[in-house]
């Protein structure tokens, strides 16, 4: 279906002559129209700048009436103050010299008080005699371009700011790293002090007995849970203990502290080894059974009582702790087994095992924590040092004074390298073959 009154398209299917005629008519018709409604502003001025002709596009951009402009104002009157200055100092002199200028950025005033960024190109028209006659000027609206430039500038500023912020962050991270390093150092110092507080500052000097202790710390950032002590019960008798609390870190340290002071005070009230362990068991069990993980320790507690002839009787009790070892003056080494003693603190009442021996001159008793026997040895660090190897090692040292034994064992611990990943405490008590000329005291290592 088609409409009979429909006009044919100008470039439609008519004959060729008709098409050309229509096309020409269109062009002729558009000359004035093109000037007035062009997508850019046009204006012509006299050589003094007085506006002689201006197109509708520019007038509409500026919001001005033709009658108010033509013959009444100069081009510079349409410019902003900045634009006017630039025009007079650069634009006009250059135009006069070169006869043309292209793409100069200026700012025009609008009737509404706004600013219109424009790009201006001007050409001087000369008479046939070469005299300048008038200036033809084209004006392009550069708002979009200005916006684009401003956007570019803004992005550049943003990028610059981001770079500055990144640099700032890098500096802050570096400061934080230095701070963390300093904090780590302070923490290690604090932990070392705390760790020392869990051990006797120096072992006391005992009459007729030599004592030596050693403590190996697995990590400067992790408090260990091994402890030992040696102290007088009365004028004749002495007490000692060595133990290992479960776990590591501050909780283990507080348990260590509690265990150490409980055993110390228990020893004075009821010096029998089993009684001291029973008191500790009650304290730990009451303290830690109410919720949370079980907390316990293994410990050997013992009493030393001098006998005539320089002999010393040792009576000890063990709660789940590895057996003590005795090095004899005859060059042998044997365990002092305490089977059946239970971990301290896990049951309301616990069985503890006792053992007794006499140290003759030249004999040395060794207490240790399982860091020593559980050290991983071998090329692949996949086998345990173990109790048999310890006894063999000790037999090789025997007879040895307490200090000689501790020196040999600390060398052994060092030889384990990274196979030794647990804290290890050692306490040796030996009867000298000859009374010492001066009391031997040893600080923990």
């Amino acid at each position, binding site marked *: 279906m088609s409409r009979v009154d429909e006009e044919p398209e100008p470039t439609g299917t008519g004959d060729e002559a008709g098409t050309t005629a229509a096309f020409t008519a269109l062009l002729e018709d558009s000359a004035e129209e093109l000037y007035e409604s062009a997508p850019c502003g046009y204006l012509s001025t006299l050589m003094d700048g007085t506006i002689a002709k201006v197109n509708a596009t520019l007038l509409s951009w500026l919001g001005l009436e033709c009658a108010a402009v033509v013959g009444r104002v100069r081009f510079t009157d349409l410019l902003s103050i900045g634009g006017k200055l630039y025009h007079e100092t650069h634009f006009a002199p250059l135009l006069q010299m070169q006869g043309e200028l292209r793409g100069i950025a200026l700012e025009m005033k609008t009737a509404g008080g706004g600013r219109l960024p424009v790009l201006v190109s001007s050409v001087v028209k000369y008479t046939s005699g070469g005299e300048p006659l008038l200036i033809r000027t084209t004006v392009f609206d550069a708002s979009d371009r200005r916006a684009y430039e401003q956007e570019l500038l803004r992005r550049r500023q943003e990028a610059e700011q981001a770079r500055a912020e990144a640099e700032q962050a890098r500096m802050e991270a570096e400061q934080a790293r230095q701070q963390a390093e300093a904090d780590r150092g302070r923490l290690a110092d604090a932990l070392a002090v705390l760790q020392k507080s869990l051990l006797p500052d120096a072992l006391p000097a005992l009459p007729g007995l030599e004592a030596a202790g050693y403590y190996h710390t697995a990590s400067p950032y992790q408090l260990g849970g091994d402890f030992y002590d040696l102290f007088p019960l009365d004028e004749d008798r002495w007490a000692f203990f060595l133990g*290992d609390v479960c*776990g590591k870190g501050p909780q283990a340290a507080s348990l260590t502290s509690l265990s150490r002071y409980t055993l110390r005070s228990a020893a004075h009230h009821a010096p029998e080894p089993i009684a001291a362990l029973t008191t500790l068991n009650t304290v730990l069990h009451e303290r830690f059974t109410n919720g949370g*993980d*079980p907390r316990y320790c293994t410990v050997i507690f013992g009493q030393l009582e001098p006998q005539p002839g320089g002999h010393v009787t040792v009576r000890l009790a063990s709660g789940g702790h590895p057996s003590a070892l005795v090095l004899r003056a005859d060059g042998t080494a044997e365990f002092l087994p305490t089977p059946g*003693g*239970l*971990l301290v603190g896990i049951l309301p009442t616990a*069985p503890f095992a006792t053992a007794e021996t006499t140290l003759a001159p030249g004999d040395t008793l060794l207490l240790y924590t399982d860091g020593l026997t*559980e050290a991983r040895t071998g090329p692949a660090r996949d086998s*345990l040092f173990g109790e048999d190897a310890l006894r063999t090692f000790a037999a090789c040292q025997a007879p040895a004074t307490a200090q000689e034994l501790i020196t040999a064992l600390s060398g052994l611990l060092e030889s384990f390298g990274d196979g030794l990943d647990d804290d290890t405490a050692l306490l040796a008590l030996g009867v000298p073959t000859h009374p010492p000329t001066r009391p031997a005291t040893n600080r923990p290592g």
Partner: protein
Amino acid sequence: MSLLKITRRDAATGPVLHVAGALDYDQAPALRQQTAHLALKPGQCLVIDLSGLEFCDSTGITVLLAARQQALAAGADIALVAVPPNTMRILTVVGLDQVFTIRPHADSN
């Protein structure tokens, strides 16, 4: 050190946890978590099958003790089965061989 692998099955008497790998400072907490989420009923027996256990240190012992505490609190019992010799030696040293019910095989009573 191999990774800890815990598998659970339910027997007529209660849950059975098969533990393989190492119960050490780094990995023992995984078993602790697993046992903490068991809903044990009175009269049941939690069986921990240690036949695949390669290493157990004091942290592992702590976790086993925590499981025992939890079982007893629920009115249930706990048994360790197929304890490897190394771990048995440690359990004996610390006296826990008298505290835990220890059986040679998972299906023995």
